């Protein structure tokens, strides 16, 4: 409890000072490379390094394929899967990455067999995940640690030209209803 409180104090600012990139190793394994500028303790908390952490991403059960879950997920990115507008708590992000209970999805991904490779539609969907014009987006999804099954989308990383941000992904979709029975 004490440590959790301590970390929250450490990361009170909303702007992130990290750059995240996904790499593929020669044996086709996904790696998340987090580069920190040293202005906060993000990397240190994550991997006890000051400038860079490399996290090997675990398998994603049934993600290479067209299961209904993956199909639905990819179809709904940018439609009902949207960022909440709420900047993610850094402690939660670090915790998720550290425990390796996550998988990542990007616009051009081996997990996306629904959209055609390099399709404009796929890029557009991911661009819609970030509030402003961004150059890179990474969707983080939580997974069940034992089976590696996807549970739900959790964060979205947005890389703008001059800054980066991580937002929470909303579990409740905000809707507009333009009618009231009183209009009758």
């Amino acid at each position, binding site marked *: 409890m004490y440590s959790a409180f301590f970390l929250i104090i450490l990361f009170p600012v909303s702007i992130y000072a990290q750059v995240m990139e996904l790499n593929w190793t*020669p*044996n*086709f*394994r996904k790696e998340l490379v987090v580069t920190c500028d040293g202005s906060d303790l993000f990397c240190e908390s994550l991997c006890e390094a000051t400038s860079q952490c490399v996290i090997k991403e675990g*398998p*994603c*059960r*049934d*993600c*290479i*394929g*067209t*299961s*209904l*879950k*993956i*199909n*639905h997920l990819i*179809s*709904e990115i940018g*439609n*009902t899967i*949207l960022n909440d507008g709420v900047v993610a708590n850094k402690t939660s992000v670090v915790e998720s990455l550290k425990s390796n209970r996550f998988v990542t999805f990007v616009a051009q991904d*081996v*997990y996306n067999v*629904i959209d055609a490779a390099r399709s404009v539609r796929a890029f557009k969907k991911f661009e*819609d995940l970030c509030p402003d014009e961004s150059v890179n987006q990474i969707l983080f999804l939580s997974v069940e640690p034992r089976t*590696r099954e996807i549970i739900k989308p959790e964060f979205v990383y947005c890389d703008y030209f001059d800054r980066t941000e991580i937002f929470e992904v909303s579990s409740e*979709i*905000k*809707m*507009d*209803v*333009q*009618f009231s*029975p009183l*209009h*009758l």
Partner: protein
Amino acid sequence: MLETNWIKSGKISDAKQYSECKIIKKFSTLNSNLTVSKPDRTLFEEMAKEIESPESFTAACDDFSELTQPEVALYQFDLKNPENFDEYGFDFWHSLKIYLSWAFRNSPEMKPLAEPFDYLFQSANLEEMVLFFSNGCQSIKPATCSEKDLSLDNLRYLTATTGELDWSKLESVRHVPDSSPLEEFSKPLPLLEEDILNLGDYESADEWVKNFRDNFVRTRGYNKIRLSRAVTNLSLITQNVSSELVKNKVVKDISELNSESKQQLYYLCSEFSLAADKDLSFLRKDIWRLKDLKIFDQVLKDISQSNLESFWKHFETLSSDINSLCQNLKQRSIWDEDFQLQKEGFSPWYQELVYEKSFNFTDDVTISYEKVSKPFLSIQSGNVICQNGIHCARLVLDSIMSLSSISHNLSALVPGSREVMSNNMANPYSSRMACGAYDPWAKRNATIFDFFQDLAQTAVFGLLPTPVYVGATLDPKRVVSFDTLIKEGQVYYDPNFNTKRLKLALIADLGPLTGIPCSVSISGSRLNPFQYYMFNGISASTCKERSTNDVVVSSSSEVDSDKNYRQACATCAINLQTVASSASIINPLFRVSFFLIKGVVRLVSNLKDPHDLARDWSVSPNLVSLSYRYRGEISKSCSKKLLKGKSCLEKSCEGEILDELTSKYFISPTLTDFSCIGGKGYLEIKECDHPLQLKFGRNGTTISTECKLKKRI
């Protein structure tokens, strides 16, 4: 683990001792259907030739150089001499599937095989990528009369060549499929010689698999997108706007009609009437089945926070409200003489059903709408869900229609379990037998039994007015099998009757007969087909355009409608419930004779049936091969012996020597002149220009020849 589970005795320890794995390169007579109803000498000769050259048809399982299509492969697993296999065969295949799922992701043997993609392979959805099926009459899993198995078995239709596949006739992509996979039973059984898996259409097995896989993936993908879209729409609508609010918005929309929204309102009323009208919709029964289905539970958990119950409640109330709203409209003032209906605006399911629009994958599956400045329901990010109340209501119905159609094939198209798929698609008899709809071994007895059953029905149903009349008449044994199914808890269909088929059958069987209350009425308006008048089993609708199917009626004294429209285009329709009961009330004698005639006709036609009497042959491929090698051909008399499981070779000393030689070498004897008593002689074979000189002694047979003989392994 597999071996331990399978072979309880523990005698066999090496899998290769009892199994063989081959890549199928080309289909042979050994792994396809019979090309004739009874095996003959031509078939045996073809079989023998194929056995002689196995390299043309199969390759070793790990010989990847033989694969012509990188994304697909067809493997054959042969089990060698499995003792008492019938006792544990199903368990074996079931265990194999479970083991495969585990081993693919976790076994250390997979890593070197998959490198450098071993990590990626762990993320692959294996269970959707592999399909086990038996290529013969024996089943790979117990045939059960469940919707799941029936829809899986029906995957056989996807083996048709893409260019020749009529997607419109494929239940798995239709917007409004027939009411259940059991409809399959109404189709005639394929003949023995019919190539039901279309194996003969392809030069290589890979091409066949690729075609099947393409059709399957396409069908599955299409349905998943349809399901995903329907669930998203229903979730967003039911969570955010109540059915009452949608109805109120529709009322508001009606008060602000323009030319475009008149079209939309017309679509709304027509679609809800056809799908959900309590009295007239023959789809209603099938759609209403949804509310009791449990098969969506897991699927919905995967992709939505809502459940089917909440969707259903919303739809049920809304459909009742919309139908009532439409029936009370001042139709003539809305759809006046200037109104021109644009058919293309109807929902895809309506167009398919009413206008018989053929299916095309590239067709837009979204429904038309009128764009407004302030949409009724939208996501705050900007994506519009419903433009107005009419759009919202139509979207709810369209989504429910999607769920209803997908429910028929859900297990095959959206597998929910973590098990590799398997089916009995090569065997069209298994599911029929499991459902009690076909019993080849009791055919003769059943024919007689059926006749007595018909007689009994004549007695029973001649007296009792009951809709059971329908099921018993249309589909022999159907009533019994449905009953069994329901007792088994496998299928949840109403045992009464299938309205859609009944309608067709009634028209076909009873239409020309006098005394049948063919129903006729004329709508008060020429323009709206959803306005019906109901009386005594007679109903009809009018339409703006006269189609070839319509029956024009001049008048009906029972109809009290606007005289100006009496000559309008009218559709003769039958109110099925009323017809069934009125048939018994009006003319019980007719019903008695009807059943009797049916029974006699069925008895005669069944006894004449040349294809449906079961036969059983057990032919040994080794004996076929040996006989062919020995004779160089299969004669008619030899063919008869082979059919009885016997060899064509005489059991003499000479016969045994030939047996030995042909087993050792790839040779085709054409002429022999040797005797065991003389101890020598010669043998002419196709493979060598000179005769082989043979000598026999205590040390066995020695061969002298200049030709190099190819040894069998």
